[in-house]
């Protein structure tokens, strides 16, 4: 050891001589000529390398907390590695996709299934999961949950993954225990915005009423955009207990905050605001006809009604829409002499046309806001009726929202009937709100419709969206039944050239993906 140290001193001299150059150190210097300097340096270099000693260890990281959950079976772990590796792959948008499944789209399903079994991620895949969670916010909660404590442990060491500590997913991040009053208080006062959002969520989940209490402590000093975000977080677990806080927020300086508070209150049918709105709405709408409000008074403004209509809309219709949307749907039964939603919706609206559309659209928004299934059902009408003739709205986006308030089975049944009656071209958004895997009748309706479209010689690419959805959502058990569709037929005389081959290819990919999903799910089953 000592000898090496001595040698190192000599080495420094050699470096100094080399920097300066031997021409300028004639006579002196540690080695003399340039050749001699190189000789000496070579001996040193090899001696230093051969005599290397380990360094002193730095501070070892705290061991990661144990994750008691089981790892997935081996094959499932390998599959996850494959899915994560395929994640960054460029999606060849619009181009012909060939017969092979798109792995990227299967990752969310893998994660969801793994969550159902309560697995943890294989350790070595945690960095890839964190990267995936960083790139795709839609995957974030599930990816972080799977990564678990190991993911949080890792995220604390790498700034790229700091987001994981804010998510609050997995619970064991940096958030204090919600019962630790001092800890909660400190983080609420000093934390970063995202940490505070997470904290508020955690507190809310623990005790709903504690969230507005916490908010109240700093409300006056928060910035408007933060107030809006905090208010929005009350949407989860909204209850009558939140009314006083929301009622107070109706007097907020920010118009957006006021509007959001009003919206939340109107989703509480027993709130005072809902009562006030009901009173206003009932004054305008009844069996005798519709009389839209003549003015937007101070009370309406305070309750969140927006005075100025968007371009192209009359202001009275605009006010009416807002009143009806915010009024509890339960108020209409009495107003219409005890009729149910379907009967009310079916009533011809007196006092001229014009208002029917406004009124029904507002009822649709109210049904969605209040998650009212009977009203949604009434507004959707029978699935087989032509969309334009429906009682509620012809807008597919709105209908999809209405569908979301219905129970799963009923939703699937409705969409199946819709497809059977109208085909696929308008069904995309409706399918998007159905539960995966699709129920039997729904799956069959989709496949039959695809087959019909093929037989009709349609442009195959106009169905690529539904086809992609079917790959992800059809029950894997359907694969066998679909096999028959995968053979390429001759192009029909009046079809797009090459269509038959494209359809065969698309069906092959559908079957391949379903098989892959079945294999994937089978792998995840505990041994």
């Amino acid at each position, binding site marked *: 050891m000592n000898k090496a140290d001595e040698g190192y001193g000599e080495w420094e001299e050699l470096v100094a001589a080399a920097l300066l150059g031997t021409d300028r150190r004639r006579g002196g210097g540690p080695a003399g000529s340039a050749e001699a300097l190189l000789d000496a340096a070579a001996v040193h270099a090899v001696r230093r390398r051969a005599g*290397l000693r380990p360094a*002193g260890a*730095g501070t070892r990281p705290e061991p990661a907390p144990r994750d008691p959950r089981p790892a997935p079976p081996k094959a499932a772990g390998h599959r996850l590695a494959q899915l994560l590796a395929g994640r960054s792959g460029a999606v060849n948008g619009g181009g012909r996709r060939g017969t092979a499944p798109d792995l990227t789209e299967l990752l969310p399903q893998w994660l969801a299934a793994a969550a159902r079994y309560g697995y943890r991620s294989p350790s*070595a895949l945690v960095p890839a999961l964190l990267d995936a969670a960083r790139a795709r916010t839609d995957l974030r909660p599930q990816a972080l949950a799977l990564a678990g404590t190991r993911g949080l442990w890792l995220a604390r060491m790498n700034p790229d993954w700091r987001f994981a500590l804010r998510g609050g997913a997995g619970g064991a991040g940096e958030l204090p225990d919600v019962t630790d009053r001092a800890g909660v208080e400190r983080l609420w006062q000093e934390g970063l915005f995202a940490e505070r959002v997470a904290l508020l969520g955690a507190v809310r989940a623990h005790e709903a009423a504690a969230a507005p209490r916490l908010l109240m402590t700093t409300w006056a000093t928060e910035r408007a955009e933060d107030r809006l975000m905090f208010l929005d977080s009350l949407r989860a677990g909204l209850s009558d207990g939140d009314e006083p806080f929301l009622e107070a927020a109706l007097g907020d300086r920010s118009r957006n905050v006021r509007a959001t508070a009003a919206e939340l209150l109107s989703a509480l049918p027993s709130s005072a605001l809902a009562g006030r709105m009901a009173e206003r709405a009932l004054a305008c709408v009844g069996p005798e006809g519709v009389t839209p409000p003549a003015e937007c008074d101070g009370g309406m403004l305070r309750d969140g009604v927006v005075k100025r209509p968007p371009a192209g809309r009359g202001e009275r219709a605009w006010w009416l829409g807002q009143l009806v949307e915010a009024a509890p749907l339960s108020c209409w039964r009495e107003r219409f002499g005890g009729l149910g939603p379907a009967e009310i919706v079916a009533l011809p609206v007196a006092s001229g046309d014009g208002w029917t559309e406004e009124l029904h659209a507002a009822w649709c928004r109210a049904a969605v806001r209040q998650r009212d299934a009977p009203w949604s059902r009434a507004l959707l009408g029978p699935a087989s009726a032509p969309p334009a003739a429906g009682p509620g709205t012809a807008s597919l986006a709105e209908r999809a929202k209405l569908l979301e308030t219905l129970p799963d089975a009923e939703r699937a049944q409705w969409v199946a009937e819709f497809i059977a009656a109208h085909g696929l071209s308008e069904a995309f958004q409706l399918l998007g709100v159905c539960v995966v895997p699709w129920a039997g009748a729904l799956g069959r309706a989709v496949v039959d419709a695809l087959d019909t479209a093929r037989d009709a010689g349609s442009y195959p690419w106009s169905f690529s969206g539904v086809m992609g959805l079917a790959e992800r959502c059809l029950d894997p058990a359907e694969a066998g039944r679909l096999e028959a569709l995968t053979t390429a037929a001759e192009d029909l005389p009046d079809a797009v050239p090459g269509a038959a081959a494209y359809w065969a290819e698309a069906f*092959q990919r559908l079957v391949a993906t379903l098989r*892959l999903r079945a294999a994937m799910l089978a792998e995840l089953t505990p041994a």
Partner: protein
Amino acid sequence: MTDQGDRWTAEQVLDLAPDDASRKAGGRLGGAGPWLQIGGSASGSVWGLCKGSGSNPYRTVVDLTGPAYKCSCPSRKFPCKHALGLLLLWSAEGVGEPGEAPEWAAQWLADRAAKAARPVAGRGAPVDEEAARKRAERRAARIGAGVTELEQRLADLLRGGLAGQEQAGYAGWEETAARMVDAQAPGLAARVRELGTIPSCGPGWPARMLEEAALLHLLDRGWLGVAGLPEELAATVRSRVGLPASGEGEAVRDRWLVLAQYDTVSPDGRLTTRRIWLRGLAGGRPALVLDFGPPGRPPGLAMPVGLVLEAEMRFRPGSAGLRADLGERFAAAVPCAEVPAGVSTEAALEAYGTALREDPWLESWPVVLGPVVPIPGELGWQLADAEGDSALPVPLTGGGSRSRGGLWQLAALSGGAPVTVFGECGHRGFTPLTAWHPDSAEPVALG
């Protein structure tokens, strides 16, 4: 399941893929969906028909002892996605009881078996020894002239002082490197080019430059005095200068565990070098097999990490006995059932030091380290002995360093607990390449 011995893992199969696109495409074919008539033989082969978009399915055969592949698809990639898909399917589900290969597969397999049985020695026509000797002499003379010129250049460098190098720029060294290429000494050319990059490498560069210049000088002196060196050292000098190995080295038969496989691309992007590290399970001898791929094409040789091949390794003379060529193989590769035993950080450096005696120009030595705890750090990572307070730094930049992604994988695997790690241990530190989780014999190739 008794088919084809132990199956490989999906990672091991995917390691064979020539590129990312094939890896993905192969992954999609790794299910039962598109496959018909799959099967395998007891002697280590699998086959299957894969439905494509055309009317005739592709015929895919894999010889697991190679591995070697044959497929009727038009792809120029090797192995193609069908071979990968077939292997993935086999790795996940197996292909049933061993059976007879169908005729289209059997012919190719028989041809391969016949080729393997042919003796390796005595290949080619007898060489004109006199002409070969003259060629070698001519080349030695050219190298000698190059070495003398390089010595002159190094002496000039030291006479003028390194201080001017930061301003001098790279061009002068590039020119010297070109002259070494002309002198048919590619090994010297590469070192000269490396030398030229040091002044821009940040703090401490003069010491590194002196070190590299001195080692280059040592190599020059070695070449000029090669006749007087012991044969092993002389062979090392020749190969470091860039001469192809002369004569066959020692042949060692063992069960070789594949410890790591990774590619590096030359700075100009024209050549991919694949390094495959192996270790004899019985003899403990390390071996480095290199393979090269021209632009846009991956090297042809692939050995998945964690497999054990029973084979003969032909070691080239010199270079501390590391470089080897894969000789005859005797059985299909199978996964290794245990974690190799690791050594302490101190023993790792000792092993490197010892190897320097045979090859003073050696950058690093293959070592299985463990149990060690990875310590991530903003300024630098370390691998610390589980007991005591010794550690090896992990180089993050410069030669031999690897991506940070692999390091995070290592940290994730460890979770602060000790792990076993294989890597290259040298004067810059320890570069981890493969790791084993404490509870699993399955290696994780660090990306």
